[in-house]
C-alpha cells in the first residue's frame, strides 16, 4: 500500500509538471511534440528488457522480445523523425 501511495505521488506530480510544460510549447512545434512524446513513451522498453533478460526461456521472454522490437522501432523512428522536423525549423533567416 505504501508502495502504491508513493507511486501515486510521483504520478500526480508528473501530471502537473506535464501540464505546465506542454502549455509552454509553441503551437508551431505541436507536430514535433507529438513525435517526441511518442518516442519517449517507448521507454516502456524498460519493462520489455526485464522480460527478455532472464536466462530461462518462456512465453514471457517471447512477449518481451516482441515488445523490445516494437519499442525500438518507436524509439529510433520517433527521435529521428523529430530531429528531421526540427532541422527544418532551423536554417531560415537569410
Amino acid at each position, binding site marked *: 500500500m505504501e508502495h502504491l501511495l508513493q507511486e501515486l505521488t510521483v504520478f500526480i506530480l508528473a501530471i502537473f*509538471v506535464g501540464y505546465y510544460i506542454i502549455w509552454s510549447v509553441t503551437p508551431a512545434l505541436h507536430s514535433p511534440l507529438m513525435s517526441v512524446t511518442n518516442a519517449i513513451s517507448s521507454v*516502456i522498453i524498460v519493462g*520489455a528488457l526485464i522480460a527478455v*533478460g532472464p536466462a530461462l526461456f518462456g512465453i*514471457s*521472454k517471447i512477449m518481451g522480445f516482441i515488445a523490445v522490437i516494437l519499442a*525500438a522501432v518507436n524509439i*529510433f*523512428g520517433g527521435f529521428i*523523425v523529430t530531429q528531421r522536423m526540427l532541422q527544418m525549423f532551423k536554417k531560415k533567416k537569410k
Partner: protein
Amino acid sequence: MEHNYSILAYLISGVFFILALRGLSSPETARRGNIYGISGMVIAIVATLLLPGIESYVLIVLGILIGGIIGTSIALKIKMTALPQLIAGFHSLVGLAAVMVAGAAFHNPSAYGIGDIGNIPVASLIEMSLGSTIGAITFSGSIIAFGKLQGIMSGNPITFKFQHFLNAILGILLISVVILFCLNQTQNFFWSLTILAFIIGFLIIIPIGGADMPVVVSMLNSYSGWAACGIGFTLSNNLLIITGALVGSSGAILSYIMCKGMNRSFISVILGGFGGEDVTSQANKETEQRPVKSGDSSDAAFMMQNAESVVIVPGYGMAVAQAQHVLKEMCDILKKKGVNVRYAIHPVAGRMPGHMNVLLAEANVPYDEVLGLDEINRDFASTDVVFVIGANDITNPAAKTDPQSPIYGMPILEVENAKSVLFSKRSLRAGYAGVENELFFRDNTMMLFSDAKEMCENIINALGK
C-alpha cells in the same frame, strides 16, 4: 543497494525527458531538447541492462537491432505530408508493446518482483489490466486512424444503429472480465480482457471522420502515455510513471486545443458521425445554381503582385497536393516584387496539430512569417489579398453569423475582412463540415478552380511574364 543506482539513473532520465519537452517552447532550443530526450532514453536502457536480473543479452541486442533498423529506415524515408499517419502508426506500436509487457509480467511475475504465477497481488493485477486495456485500445484505435489517414479506408465516419449501446455493453463486459481476472488470475481472463479492449479501440475510432483526426491522433497520443503509466504502476517503475504522465497530459492538452479550435466538445468528437458524404452532396445541389466569380492564374498573379500585403491561408488541400514548395516559390517571387507576404495557420488546419507549420518549415518558410489565429486575425482588415489554398471551413463566416450552422462558434480566420479573397480549390464542394461557404459567392472573392500545386505553378509562370 545495488538496485539504487538504477533508481537514480531512472530519475536522471525522467528529468531529461522533462527537459526534452521544455526545449520545444521555441524552435531555437528544440533540437537541444531532442538530444536530451535521446540521452534520457540511452540512460534508461543502459541502467536496465545492468540490473542483476538481466542475464542473456542475445535477444535484447537482436530486438533492438531489428527494431532500430526498421524505425530508422521508416523515419528517414517518410514524406512530411505523410506525418499524421506515421505518428498514428507509431502510437499503435507503443500500445501493442504495452500489451506485450503486461502479458510478460503476467507470465513471469517473479522477474518483476510482483509475486509468483497464480499468486500475484490484486493491486498488481488491476494495474496490469489497466496497462493492457489502454495499450490494446491505443493499438487498435491507432490502426484505424492510420487506415483513415493513409486512405486505406474511407475517411468518412462509419456509423450504425445501436453503436453507442454496443460500446457501452462491451465496456461493462470489459469491467466484469477485469474483476474476474483479479479474482481468478487465469490466462484466459487476461487474454479476454485484452481482446475486448482491442475491439473497443476499433469501435470507438471508426465513427470519427477524417477532419477530426487531429483530435483523434492527439487522443491516442495521450492514451499511449496512460498505457505506459499503467505498466509503470505494474512494475513499480517511477520512470515509466513520470514519462507516461508527461505524454498523457501532452496528448490530453493537444486534444483540448484541437477541440477548442473547432468549438466542439471532446465528447461530441468522440461520439463521432460528424460530417461525411450525405450532407456534402446535399450542399452541393443547392450551391450549383448560384453564380460565383472565377478566375485563372493570370488574374490571381495580377492581383497579388499589385497588392501591398498578401496573407496565405493553407489547409489540408495543400498537403494533399504537396503544394508547399511551389507555394513558397510563388511567395518568394511576390516578396521580390515588394509584396508583404505572411502565412496564417488555423489550429485545426491539416490532419494533426502543427501539421501546416511542419509543411511550411519543410518548404523553408521562415517561422516568423507564420502566424497563428490570434496573431493575424485583426490584420485581415488591412490586407489586400488573401490566398486560401486547400482550406474551407476554417474561413467560413457562418461560424460567426449563423447559429444554425454545425460549425457555429468555431473560431475562424476572418479572411472576409480583406479587400479580396482568392480561393484555390478544386470545386465548389462544401468543406468537411458539409456547410457551404458564403464567402465563395461574394463580390470580392475569386475562385481559382484547379489543383493547388498546378495553380501555384501557373501563377509563378504568370508572375514571370
